[in-house]
């Protein structure tokens, strides 16, 4: 018997004022899998990811988590099911420091009734977390506006690790990174995989996709055109699907 998929979509569609952004997409992702989601601009990758993150509601079709249908109305709903997303823009607050961003939405309290923040504890936990993830930053008190692209990414990743996600979605994580930073990120993805987390990664970089994924899903104009095991395909074939779609 096959294992129960962590997340599954059935005939998932989304329309924007008559434009079809996603057209009857059915995918199934097993626990511990690292899946690459590729396609040209406007292929529907972000739309699919936003629906899974609760940032957008589907026009038709179903999303199933652990085999049961869910209706996400707010990102909070997805987070409650341990789905965490790192958006392309990283969704950080520039005017807050690293710790405040890592704990955004997951604060620890000194007094739960008044919601008084336990800042000392959160700073300590952030330092420990960054150490575990082998992420180096100048200080957990540094404002995000003063961080480099890689450090920002690390902050966003630390937030996801903090939240204890089962399914991690990464939207174009390497787009804004340098060579070393990309390396660190891919290492981190592998570490998440070792911890048994399920990962969906959107990327344009074929090299990155082939390095970390088990399976690759190709979208074109909102439709699923290929769903291949990474070991059984090659970059040329995937690029062909991206450009030409299904033969």
């Amino acid at each position, binding site marked *: 018997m096959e294992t129960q998929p962590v997340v599954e979509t059935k005939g998932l569609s989304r329309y924007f004022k008559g434009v079809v952004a996603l057209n009857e997409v059915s995918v199934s992702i097993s626990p511990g899998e690292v899946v690459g989601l590729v396609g040209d601009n406007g292929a529907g990758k972000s739309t699919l990811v936003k629906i899974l993150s609760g940032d957008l509601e589907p026009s038709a079709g179903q999303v199933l988590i652990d085999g049961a249908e869910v209706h996400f109305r707010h990102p909070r709903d997805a987070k409650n099911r341990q789905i965490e997303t790192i958006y392309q823009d990283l969704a950080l*607050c*520039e*005017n807050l420091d690293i710790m405040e961003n890592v704990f955004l939405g997951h604060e620890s309290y000194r007094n739960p009734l008044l919601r*008084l923040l336990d800042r000392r504890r959160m700073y300590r936990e952030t330092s420990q977390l960054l150490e575990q993830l082998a992420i180096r930053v100048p200080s957990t008190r540094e*404002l995000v506006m003063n961080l480099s692209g890689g450090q920002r990414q690390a902050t966003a990743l630390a937030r996801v690790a903090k939240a204890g996600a089962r399914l991690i979605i990464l939207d174009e994580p390497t787009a804004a990174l340098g060579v070393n930073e990309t390396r660190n990120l891919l290492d981190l993805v592998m570490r998440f995989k070792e911890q048994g987390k399920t990962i969906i990664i959107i990327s344009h970089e074929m090299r990155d996709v082939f390095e970390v994924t088990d399976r690759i899903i190709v979208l074109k104009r909102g439709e699923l055109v290929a769903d291949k095991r990474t070991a059984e395909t090659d970059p040329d074939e995937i690029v062909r699907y991206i450009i030409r779609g299904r033969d």
Partner: protein
Amino acid sequence: MTAQPSADASGLAVRLPAPLVTLLRRRDSNVFFLLFVLVAAIVFFTIQSPYFFDDRNAFNIGRAVSITGIAAAFATLLMISGGLDLSIGAIMNASGLAAAVIMVDPENSIILAFAIALGISAFIGFSNGIIVTKIGVNPIIATIGMQFVVRGMTLATRSGSALVRDRAFLEIGQGELAIGTLEIPVPVILMLATMLLCYLVLRFTQFGKYIYAIGDNASACRRAGINVAGMRIALYTLSGLGAGFAGIVLAGLTGAGIPYAAGSELSVISAVILGGVSLSGGVGVIQGTLLGVLLVGVLKNGMTLLNINANWQMVVEGSVLMIAVSLDQLKQRI
């Protein structure tokens, strides 16, 4: 501290000393700047007028700014979150009038007056919040519309109240509290207490943290699972409550419900902005608002003592605001 990276100062025509650059880069550098200007203004007026530096005069200034200050404290929270409330003056009038009309009848209790006046204010603020967040109307338009609606309804109900004779109610605006040898006006104490409350909220609570976070990146907050719409509605409601409380204090001060506060939202907002809050949200501290309110009060009082015509006072007030905001813009190039 370590040396400044060379890239930092290279864009500047004038090289600034490193400690000054560090000071200017602080989140609350406005506070230092305002403190400096405030002290300078006090020194200037003390030299120019023998009546200025005196505790009676200080309390005159305090009493004059307390109404604006109370409303400004809550407006600061709203504005840091990126919101704006132009119905503050109208709410002050509605609330003050409602409280005074109730208090004119000696049978009625002060608690009833507070409950009705603050209830009306909170409802108006809540309505602003719903219109802005749930319907998506721009805050400027929504709250200007609300300003007209509330002003019209207030004047249609009553053009004013008779004189209030209730001692307790008048004490709120006219009373003094003896602390040591000083007789501190009650409105000043109320303003400082309000500011302190808002300071503690901003500094130590999750609500305060989310105010800054939403002001910087509301969509990131939503994606982090925060109830952004709920936060915004709460902040508009608080802004209404703050304005309503200021209106009650004003009614206590004047001893009747007279719609004096029309247009005072602009004094409130300009004090908040002078204090370092950006209209686009995400920055500002309550200490800045306190100093902004005090600076305007000191300038008005000092100029009055120097017999400077009210028209010119307006010119100075406006210029100070523009200079402060311009300097803040220039600061961002450092």
